[in-house]
């Protein structure tokens, strides 16, 4: 398949919990192509976060391989994984996780790699996300929705291949949560990224292209358009 930006093959991951071994991911595979927005749903404790951490190169799987932008990065060193996270992955977290002491424009500038300054305009991103007026505001002066949108803008600032969103609606009310997911969708489509969102919010699933359910360590495709 061409155009696959994120691919996980046969990922297994288990934790040692006291004396017993808990299998969290048991041979999970997933492929997300350009312009595709995938959602992963499942009860809490089902391994959604572990899955996202493996895809985000924050955890190494016990077996299986991770390909980003068509390249196998399973065996990458710690430093290489940091570089890949910076350049090829964009993270959106449960809460905005902005730095309290930086204005929005600086939040983006601090993670933007120098060569990207030409390619991705911070101001353009902010106006696409409708927070151009927050450019010179500290997070403390912004609403929850504005903060989450600033965090979304931050995820796109290095023109990554893959966007990973961890419950992006968790800290927002239904209306604002939906707006945030809409904005992620618009950017993913416009910039032709692959995106994976972990969520338990069924009300936003109509905005994504494919839905996977994770349960008992297995990943099942639930819907695909």
């Amino acid at each position, binding site marked *: 398949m061409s155009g696959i930006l994120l691919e996980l093959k046969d990922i297994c991951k288990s934790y040692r919990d006291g004396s017993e071994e808990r299998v969290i991911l048991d041979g999970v595979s997933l492929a997300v192509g350009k312009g595709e927005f995938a959602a992963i749903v499942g009860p809490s404790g089902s391994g959604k976060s572990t899955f996202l951490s493996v895809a985000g190169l924050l955890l190494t799987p016990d077996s299986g391989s991770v390909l980003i932008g068509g390249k196998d990065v399973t065996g990458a060193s710690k430093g290489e994984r940091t570089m890949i996270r910076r350049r090829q992955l*964009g993270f959106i977290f449960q809460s905005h996780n902005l730095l309290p002491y930086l204005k929005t424009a600086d939040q983006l500038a601090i993670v933007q790699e120098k060569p990207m300054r030409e390619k991705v305009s911070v101001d353009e991103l902010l106006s696409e996300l409708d927070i151009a007026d927050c450019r010179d505001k500290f997070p403390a002066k912004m609403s929850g929705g504005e903060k989450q949108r600033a965090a979304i803008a931050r995820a796109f600032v290095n023109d990554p291949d893959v966007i990973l969103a961890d419950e992006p609606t968790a800290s927002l009310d239904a209306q604002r949560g939906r707006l945030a997911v809409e904005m992620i969708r618009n950017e993913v489509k416009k910039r032709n990224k692959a995106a994976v969102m972990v969520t338990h919010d069924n009300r936003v699933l109509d905005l994504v292209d494919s839905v996977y359910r994770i349960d008992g360590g297995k990943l099942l495709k639930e819907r695909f358009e």
Partner: protein
Amino acid sequence: MKYAWKEILYGRKKYILIELLLILLMFMVLFLSGLASGLGRAVSSAIDTMNADSFIVDDSAEQLITVSSVGTQVLDELRSAGANAAPLDIQRMYIIKDGDDEKLNMTYFAIEAGSFIEPETIEGTGLAASSADNPILLDDDYKLEGISLGDKVRDSSTDIEFTVVGFVDDRMYGHTSVGYITTDSYTRLRKALNPMYVQSYHAIAVRGSADYDFAGNGLELVSKHEIIENIPSYSAEHLTITMIVWVLVIISAVIIGIFNYILTLQKQKQFGVMKAVGMRNSELAGMVISEVLIISVFAAAVSLVLTFAMAAAIPEKMPFYLEAPDAVAVTAAFVAISVPSSMLSVVNISRIDPVKAIGGGEE
């Protein structure tokens, strides 16, 4: 650096408090350092400012001029060999101001009138230019005792009378102010005390090099620096205060390190997120170190200004003497030590696992 500065500006309330603490500490350090060199100068300034490089003393004197004895022929032999040499006697006595009966401490420096170790006067004439029988140049501290140019002062044990012909500044030895008299006056003084006195010198000051068989004649050539170190009480006082100064410098720098470490502990989640989005350890370490540098440079600069302002307002008699190079050395050391003291934070950051940024961590 830019982001560290923004962080400090944003959290200025808490940073101002730590700055205040550091400024007070550094001010104390600089002030003590000034007192240390002030006290040191009260012991040694007459030697320190003397226009000589080394001194000849006898080898049993343990490098202490006041207990040394050098025969007069040594001076003659040195001079005929072309060396730049001048005799020096140092004697602690008391003087009494004419028409008064209060004894004043005085250390006589007996020198040859017009020799290269005679200090420049800030008022009056030199010893050679005077026609008085027993001329004396006084440290200007004696002005505070009401002595002025042309006054007569009396040696308390011999009643020999000296005429004040000039004043010099900043000449002290062993915590007493110095009076410069001629070698001739000194010989007269000694003969009055002991008619059997045979002239010899305590030491011979040398400028440049001197070619002489010192060891063969029971003598040694000692550098000015060593002579000062061996003045009684100089090392003891100087070392103690210097040690306090450096311990305080280190404590101040460590306080920055601890403060920074506490801030780092509070920001574990922030650092975890920054690492998750791909910021390198080196970038985060750079932010922490620049923050420490900004704090320490600011504290150093403010305390320097405060100290010099204070020094200008301090009473003349207080032994405070701070030279800019010393003050800068102390503050530069403080800034330099603050950087390794922030390593604790850097190590802590490098150990933060970015996976904590996702969900609740492990499920």
